């Protein structure tokens, strides 16, 4: 009686590691219908409580079951401005799907795959023009066009605010465009989702570096904005500060992925931005970004791509699915290992790496077991490209140039988790600039809550 979830068709690993096309191919209508039929439509749905943007999950699946895809898409979009993105990159296994009642004894409903199916159906058939609410004639500025900013902007526009988004790069989307690779999140999908945000009435201005081109205070005092949402993300790459780290061929994950995704270096020389990948690539770290970098390296022609991580498999922060995909494509894993120094040739190009082995000690403040170096375990390995993917810290440009904003010890903006309220009443913040590097969906949740508090703040201010 109990059926497992419908599998997701995917490109063959041996073929896909040589191209940048999307790995997961999406459900067919038959597959979607079969999977949707597994949903019990619980009276007290737990899945919704696991969704940071509060999607009416049983609602959209019910409409899908009835074959009413239009209504299904409308229900999705009622809460989620970027469903085609979320259906692809959300860690559903720790959120909605983790709470699905079917998961207690078998496999949970594949909510993410169904979300993707419905969103893709709508993109393919043409997204209807959203209804425009009664204008409130109040201007709100959103800084940063990543997941947090786009969500806040979309929600505020739906409430009738006049929203302008300021983006520092030449393309909106933030990490969705520069960070997550084409093979996991096609850029055309992101563009179409952003187009929907624009059709809600949001004005997106690119090439605007807030903190340089103008400041948050200028927006508030001179340009007539009554509230500002800051969603500038975790922009600054961490390095390990070990000897030889400035040799050439050692990239931050941000640089490696930005060159490839945003600047399309994989299409060089049709696109003028170059990237160089050697035969042996080492990726330091084991989060989603590290998996993206390791898989990208293979697609750029590396013969070997190895994840180097100082803890064990169990502590790897990447999604299980990403680790599996990487493994299928031939990415190697060198665990309980970390580099301590790099060596280069006369041109300053990295050629080798000295690593140290680790064992696991007691849990640290993150709850994960602390890696302890094993004395005398150093060994050398030959490599010619390194990608450092050990996390990012908040970008200081906006915090540094906005007076009276309380900043935390990691350079993050201090903001209330529930409301996004900062130390200044007219400024709200959310996403990685507040939490440090986290996930797309958590940033979207923060954007959604902040939009609600901005609305409350502006209504309160008026009365």
């Amino acid at each position, binding site marked *: 009686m109990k059926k497992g979830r419908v599998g997701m068709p995917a490109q063959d690993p041996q073929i896909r590691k040589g191209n940048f096309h999307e790995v997961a191919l999406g459900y067919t209508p038959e597959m979607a219908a079969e999977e949707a039929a597994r949903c019990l439509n619980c009276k007290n749905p737990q899945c919704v409580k696991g969704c940071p943007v509060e999607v009416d999950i049983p609602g959209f699946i019910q409409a899908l079951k009835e074959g009413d895809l239009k209504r299904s898409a409308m229900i999705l979009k009622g809460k989620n401005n970027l469903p085609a993105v979320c259906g692809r990159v959300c860690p559903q296994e720790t959120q909605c799907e983790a709470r699905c009642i079917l998961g207690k004894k078998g496999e949970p409903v594949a909510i993410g795959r169904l979300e993707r199916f419905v969103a893709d159906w709508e993109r393919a058939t043409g997204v209807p023009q959203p209804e425009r609410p009664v204008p409130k004639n109040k201007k709100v500025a959103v800084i940063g066009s990543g997941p947090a900013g786009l969500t806040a902007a979309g929600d505020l526009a739906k409430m009738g605010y006049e929203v302008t988004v300021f983006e*520092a*790069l*030449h393309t909106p989307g933030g990490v969705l465009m*520069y960070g997550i690779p084409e093979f996991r999140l096609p850029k055309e999908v992101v563009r179409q989702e952003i187009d929907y945000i624009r059709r809600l009435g949001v004005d997106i201005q*690119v*090439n*605007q*570096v807030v903190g*340089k*081109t*103008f400041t948050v205070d200028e927006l508030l005092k001179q340009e007539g904005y009554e509230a500002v949402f800051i969603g500038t993300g975790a*922009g*600054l*790459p961490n*390095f390990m*500060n070990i000897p030889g*780290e*400035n040799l*050439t*061929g050692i*990239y*931050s994950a*941000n*640089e490696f992925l*930005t*060159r490839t995704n945003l*600047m*399309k270096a994989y299409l*060089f*020389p*049709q*696109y*003028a*931005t*170059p990237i*160089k990948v050697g035969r042996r690539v080492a990726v330091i770290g084991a989060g989603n970004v590290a998996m993206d970098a390791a898989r990208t390296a293979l697609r750029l022609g590396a013969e070997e791509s190895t994840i180097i991580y100082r803890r064990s498999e169990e502590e790897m922060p990447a999604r299980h699915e990403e680790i599996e995909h990487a493994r299928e494509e031939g990415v190697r894993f060198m665990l309980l290992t970390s580099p301590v120094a790099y060596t280069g040739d006369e*041109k*300053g*190009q990295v050629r080798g790496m000295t690593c140290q082995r680790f064992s696991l000690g007691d849990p640290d403040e993150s709850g994960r077991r602390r890696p302890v170096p094993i004395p005398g375990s150093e060994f050398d390995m030959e490599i010619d490209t390194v990608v450092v993917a050990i996390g990012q810290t908040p*970008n*200081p*440009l906006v915090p540094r140039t906005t007076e009276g904003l309380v900043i935390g010890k990691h350079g993050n903006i201090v903001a209330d988790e529930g409301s996004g309220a900062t130390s200044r009443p007219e400024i709200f913040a959310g996403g990685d600039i507040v939490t440090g590097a986290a996930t797309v969906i958590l940033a979207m949740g923060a954007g959604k809550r902040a939009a609600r508090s901005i609305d409350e703040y502006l209504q309160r201010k008026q009365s």
Partner: protein
Amino acid sequence: MYKILHKEPLGTNLHLLEVEAPRIARKAKSGQFIILRLKEEAERIPLTIADYSREKGTLTIIFQEVGYSTRELAGCRAGDTILDLVGPLGLPSEIEKYGTVVCVGGGVGIAPVYPIARDLKKAGNRVLSIIGARNSSLLFWREKMAEVSDRLFIATDDGSEGRKGFVSDVLKEILDAEQVMRVWAIGPMIMMKVVAETTRPYGVPTIVSMNPIMVDGTGMCGACRVAVGQQTRFACVDGPEFDGHLVDFDLAMKRAAFFKDKEQQALEMCRCGGEGK
């Protein structure tokens, strides 16, 4: 889109562009830079701001054709548009009244040193300027530099204009003759290194402007890292100006050369007429 209002040849492979960018012009200060992207398939190119007019809302940038992307930029005419232009990026020069200062501009580096010399002069400094290049055809803005300097010295490697020799030779003579409070040097990496070595024994603070490989210019990618003393700094947000006595120029030169073979590949493609329009 950013309109090119004026284009002017300045010398061999040297070009000046005046671009309409009122928002950036309003904020620009000497020492800062912009990043531009000519069209969809183009690279993001960092270029130091050579001049700006807040009234006209324009920026002046000067560049040398060295590779595929600058060659493509050189093909633009007045009336054409640049797809993306962002700035002003980096920290401005620290303009104060120091006393006697020397501004050294080598080759295309004359452009960014000009607004610094001008602002130092305005701030009440006695400004001695030295401009130099391999030969006379690579020199420009002699009058503009003379206007903002108490004295202007010219040096060329081949002696085709001014004195024969390096800018550092002139600088050394000045340092021997009088008390200099601070030196700015902008130009090819090797020139900045030699200038820093020249001033080191005199203990004169020497500011250099680094122009490393960059992608975003907002601190995000770390491509522009520069070793300064014991620290790694990002030229885009911590610079571009650094203490010349602490910069590891040898590392910087190696880093700058990393994509040379790729640039050659792109250039060859464009010579074959395979340019994707």
